[in-house]
């Protein structure tokens, strides 16, 4: 399929971008219809305030401050998306990213609050915890043939309840509230350093090197998957397990390793949120935090590319913050959750959409070929 004079639609990246934009548009459109049904008079204002997000503040300083908050929350989401897409490239659907994220939060906060460790120790602990959970899923898959989706979901809940128990211990949980104690007051070493980044964002306290760190990780994941022999082997295992096995790759090791890396990415994501002090863990929470599941949305919206995921993660956090701007006496903030879930649902059609574009292009090409040389058949891709 590499011909000159071909249309721009031919590039895979362009097709993916187009498909993602279509998903976003579709999600927004259905979201808008839902708003119209709830209350038509304010629907337009509501959907624009979701899209405007922090731009609704008039002063540049406030805009920067809230942009900083959006970016701080983008970093962990991006990590979860990387976790999902890394596993997906190896043929596994890592719905367990949510649980690996929870395990990461548990380890990071335990190290930070109970043991007063510096931030990088906490982060490594979070990665280790996520990796452990991921490896467990991978091992169950290779040795016991348990579907990664099912084991991931079970481990999500196990991780959630374990984390609630661990973080409810004396000295970690705030005795006055269901939340853990604030890291900022107890162990400033445990906070990810800002290195002056906060001054760029209206002195927003939560802006730290977590943001560039997440972007670096996205590039590392891209590099491993596309530029190394290791990544090539992993992808080969995902494409065809048996072929990989017969060509001498260690297929079982590859699967466990993939899940370990995916778990470490999600675990690190949690440390990037909880070690900035923007949020505490709620020890009575009864559902798995949405971050990991949103990671799935981001990974697919980003066309399963690490670089695309950066944009997608930002977009999802942008509209999530925007959800809080709607008139809460008529609508509710969850409208942005609804829009993002609609977007993922539409993302399931991306493959079909791309195939449709390719089919059309091929038919056009075949027609052109037939017109030129009637005796020869069309080229088959």
């Amino acid at each position: 399929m590499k011909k000159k004079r071909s249309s721009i639609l031919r590039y895979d990246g362009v097709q993916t971008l187009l498909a993602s934009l279509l998903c976003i548009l579709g999600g927004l459109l259905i979201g808008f219809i839902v708003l119209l049904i709830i209350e038509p008079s304010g629907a337009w204002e509501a959907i624009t305030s979701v899209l405007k997000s922090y731009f609704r503040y008039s002063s540049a300083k406030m805009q920067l401050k809230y942009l900083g908050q959006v970016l701080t929350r983008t970093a962990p989401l991006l990590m979860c998306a990387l976790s999902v897409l890394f596993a997906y490239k190896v043929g596994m659907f890592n719905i367990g990213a949510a649980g690996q994220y929870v395990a990461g939060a548990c380890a990071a906060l335990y190290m930070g609050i109970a043991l007063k460790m510096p931030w990088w120790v906490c982060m490594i602990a979070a990665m280790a915890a996520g990796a452990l959970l991921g490896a467990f899923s991978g091992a169950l898959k290779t040795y016991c043939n348990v579907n990664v989706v099912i084991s991931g979901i079970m481990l999500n809940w196990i991780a959630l309840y374990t984390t609630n128990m661990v973080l409810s211990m004396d000295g970690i949980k705030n005795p006055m509230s269901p939340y853990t104690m604030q890291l900022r007051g107890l162990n400033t070493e445990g906070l990810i350093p800002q290195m002056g980044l906060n001054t760029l964002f209206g002195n927003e306290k939560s802006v730290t090197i977590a943001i560039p760190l997440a972007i670096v990780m996205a590039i590392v994941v891209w590099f491993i998957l596309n530029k190394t022999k290791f990544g090539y082997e992993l992808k080969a295992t995902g494409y065809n397990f048996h072929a990989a096995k017969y060509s001498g790759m260690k297929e079982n090791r590859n699967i466990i390793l993939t899940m370990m890396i995916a778990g470490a990415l999600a675990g690190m994501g949690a440390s990037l949120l909880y070690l900035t002090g923007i949020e505490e863990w709620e020890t009575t929470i009864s559902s798995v935090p949405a971050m990991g599941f949103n990671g799935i949305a981001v990974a697919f919206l980003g066309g399963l590319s690490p670089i695309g995921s950066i944009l997608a993660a930002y977009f999802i956090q942008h509209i999530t913050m925007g959800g809080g701007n709607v008139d809460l006496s008529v609508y509710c903030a969850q409208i942005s959750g609804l829009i993002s879930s609609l977007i993922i649902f539409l993302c399931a059609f991306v493959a079909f959409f791309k195939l449709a574009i390719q089919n059309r292009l091929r038919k056009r090409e075949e027609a052109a070929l037939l017109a030129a040389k009637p005796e020869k058949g069309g080229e088959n891709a």
Partner: protein
Amino acid sequence: MILLSQYTLLFASVLLLVALGGCFAERSGVINIGLEGIMVIGALGGALVMKFLPMELGAATMIVAVILSSALAGMLYSLLLAVAAINFKADQTITGTAMNMLATAAATVGVKAMNTAASGGNDVSSDIVYTRARDAFIVRFGNFEFNWFMVVALVALLVAWVLLYKVKFGLRLRACGEHPQAADSVGINVYKMRYAGVMISGILGGIGGIVYITAGVSSWKFENGVAGFGFLALAVMIFGQWKPFKIALAALLFGFFRALGNVYTGFDFLKNLNLPSGIYNMLPYIISLLVLALTSKSSLAPKAEGIPYDKGSR
């Protein structure tokens, strides 16, 4: 002890209904990860009827109306999966995951909008209260609260068995999950059969949803979804090896462990162990992982499940 058996039966009913739903979808060749979402929407459909149907119509009307509306809501919602997975050949795992997220988000937005509008902006919760309507389903024998939903689950089990093994429809459905090309070659419409499988799973999942939210409480916060019960049901289905009666036994086992989490404080020896409640909450999930680890090696899953059927690939 009575309380434990009551909750065991109730939770087993939920798991049985939903797992049978999953079984129908998978037997036809479609993996239904979206059961959790179907449960939420089914629960919403039932809860709305419980809230708005006047009690004066009598208990029997209430029971029938609630079950029908849950089943209908679940079935309509399952069409999302059917269209995506069967017509558009979309990835079934992504579709199912999206459906789970979508269901909770949509139910939350819908119920909040309803409550906000009804209260003029004072009540922005996502709760539906159905205290009185719930009584229609309960018959008390001493301390034991018999629930009509237990009968529904039992009937569903028998019907499922007959449908799958005793009539032509079941044979055809199973053929589509094992070898759709062969089924097609003898004139079975694979797309139609898969639609039927997914829609039956929607009906059963929807009813399972309303049973779950009315099991122990008389109001439900839709923000919370159904706490992974749809997934637990999938584990039950796998443990039950895609066979109705084995699924029923598995549902009883899992229901027991789930019930233990609700009522363990009533047993002195369990209370004296002084374990945090989190341990009991985790139990069903730990057990199901263990069980899956031990039983998945020789999987009896339908061979063509999860693979979109393409007529051209014969």
